[in-house]
């Protein structure tokens, strides 16, 4: 089979690229190992809600227009939103097709799947930033009676036994899981490494609204000092709910905070003595962000009506944080230690020694190959649903330029019929 462009992954960003390509009458196919929005269907816990408010949930030509703009979509709503988008743009999705391998052959990319094989001139890698759950090497040393579970595998607290739960990682995922498991009556110990603390709301507005107002969500990669560092930053401690979910809130609910999990030895988990500093750093960074909001309010001539500053109190660290924990008290270790994209199928010389994709703002180091949806790929918002729009437009034009360059003396074998779908007309279609 042939298509000018093969898009791997029918999540929000792959579909957004499909919409762009359809609009420009580019022959393409979207290969999806499961169903549209697959990872939302199969690799997320039940209670998950988007961290961005509904008003910010938009894809090119499509945005939320329900009656709860300040709410946060639950999992079924996210799936419906993305599914509706796929129908709206008439995306040429082949579902149930798993890509096994991509290689280069005779100036074409050869995409081997568990169904048809495809040849293409351009490849769009849109299989998500969360393909594989990171599990530290210490996991291999857990005693056999302890269940080891990643955040991708976890669904609900009722699936765990009644013993204590060690949640490793205190970013968005870790704090949310620690919260719901503690509420279910199981004692949670939360291992806290480097994290980013954010209040859900500040001075009467959602923090995402402030970040958009200050231009932070649109901040581009050429406007950050250390791109490697910001791409590795953990996701902020947020939950898709009106209330802040920080370490203080978890402490109030009975969660015990410990330092970063450093080792498993002699049937014990050993925690770093750096908890105090990790919390101090997160507090300082949060205060700096909130101070920049205050400054913006002072400087902006069109002041919003906002309440006075309500700065969160410092993180309360236990007087003597626990340095080790006997696994006899623990039934489950839940790894909320981040995710990374899955490139195990990608056999092109575009990965560095550590297996990271080498790219410049999503332009991968092989001609005609593009990535989407990675952390801070082109902008801070690149990995968010609303971040796809700008990235897809820019990379889409890169892709068109690449195809045109090759098209000078070589007409592609097939072109999709123009869909007739117009991006501008469709911009306010409801889900």
């Amino acid at each position, binding site marked *: 089979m042939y298509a000018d462009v093969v898009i791997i992954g029918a999540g929000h960003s792959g579909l957004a690229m499909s919409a762009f390509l359809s609009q420009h009458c580019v022959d393409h196919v979207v290969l999806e190992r499961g169903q549209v929005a697959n990872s939302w269907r199969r690799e997320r816990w039940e209670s998950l809600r988007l961290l961005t408010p509904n008003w910010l949930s938009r894809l090119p030509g499509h945005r939320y227009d329900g009656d709860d703009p300040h709410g946060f979509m639950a999992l079924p709503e996210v799936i419906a939103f993305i599914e509706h988008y796929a129908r709206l743009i008439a995306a040429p999705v082949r579902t149930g097709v798993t890509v096994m391998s991509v290689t280069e052959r005779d100036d074409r990319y050869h995409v081997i799947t568990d169904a048809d094989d495809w040849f293409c001139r351009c490849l769009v890698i849109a299989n998500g930033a969360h393909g594989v759950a990171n599990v530290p090497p210490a996991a291999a040393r857990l005693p056999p009676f302890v269940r080891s579970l990643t955040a991708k595998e976890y669904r609900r607290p009722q699936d765990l036994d009644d013993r204590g739960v060690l949640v490793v990682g205190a970013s968005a995922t870790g704090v949310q899981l620690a919260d719901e498991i503690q509420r279910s009556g199981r004692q949670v110990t939360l291992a806290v490494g480097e994290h980013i603390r954010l209040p859900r709301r500040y001075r009467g507005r959602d923090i995402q609204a402030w970040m958009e107002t200050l231009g932070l969500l649109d901040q581009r990669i050429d406007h950050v000092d250390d791109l490697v560092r910001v791409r590795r930053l953990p996701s902020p401690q947020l939950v898709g709910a009106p209330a802040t979910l920080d370490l203080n809130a978890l402490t109030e609910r009975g969660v015990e905070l410990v330092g970063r999990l450093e080792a498993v030895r002699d049937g014990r988990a050993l925690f*770093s003595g750096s908890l105090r500093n990790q919390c101090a750093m997160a507090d300082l960074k949060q205060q700096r962000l909130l101070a920049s909001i205050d400054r913006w309010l002072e400087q902006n001539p069109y002041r919003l009506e906002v309440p006075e500053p309500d700065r969160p109190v410092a993180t309360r660290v236990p007087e003597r944080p626990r340095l080790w924990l006997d696994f006899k008290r623990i039934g489950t270790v839940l790894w909320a230690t981040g995710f990374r994209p899955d490139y195990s199928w990608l056999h092109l010389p575009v990965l560095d020694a550590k297996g990271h994709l080498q790219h410049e703002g999503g332009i991968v180091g092989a001609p005609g190959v593009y990535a989407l949806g990675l952390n801070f790929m082109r902008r801070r918002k690149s990995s968010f649903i609303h971040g796809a729009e700008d990235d897809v437009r820019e990379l889409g034009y890169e892709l068109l330029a690449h195809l045109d360059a090759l098209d000078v003396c070589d007409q592609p074998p097939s072109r999709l019929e123009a869909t007739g779908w117009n991006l501008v007309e469709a911009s306010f279609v409801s889900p």
Partner: protein
Amino acid sequence: MLQNGSAVNNGVNVAALLDARQALTNAPEAARFKWRATCNWVNGTHSRSTVSSFYGLGGEQMRKVEFKYDCDHPEVFASEDNGATPVEMVLVGLASCLTAGVAAVAQHRKIQLRKVTAHLEGSMNIQGILGIDADVRNGYDGIKVIFDIDADATKEEIAALVAQSQRRSAVFDIITNPTDVAVEVR
């Protein structure tokens, strides 16, 4: 931060450090260092350590002078007090590492330092080393570091300096996290 544009000088060559960072990013083997010390027993609890060579940047490196450190225990331990106790040397290492970090980070952030003093105190129950109570650990059960810093910076900027120096400190990492130690006899 200094607002008048005058050059901040804490005696740290940040440009050289940033160059080294760049160079070692591209030459990961050169970044592998081995630090060494040699210790000779003198008498009783008195020992003398020397530090001179180390390995790094792809080869053996030698100091211009050999540094000597006497360690002993105080008289209340029925010792002769010829030097700091080894556990105090640990505090020295932590203090020096954090202080150097404060200076380097301050230079990078263009903060002029005038005076930096770190006060360290480690608490220890010596029932552990004396074998009185098996539940008591040998080492410190906690270490407290208090910095007095006089600098051209706000309180928050100084707090951020101290936090960042911990984040990048080798000795802080060595003390707060487990390290595999292999001791052999030949």
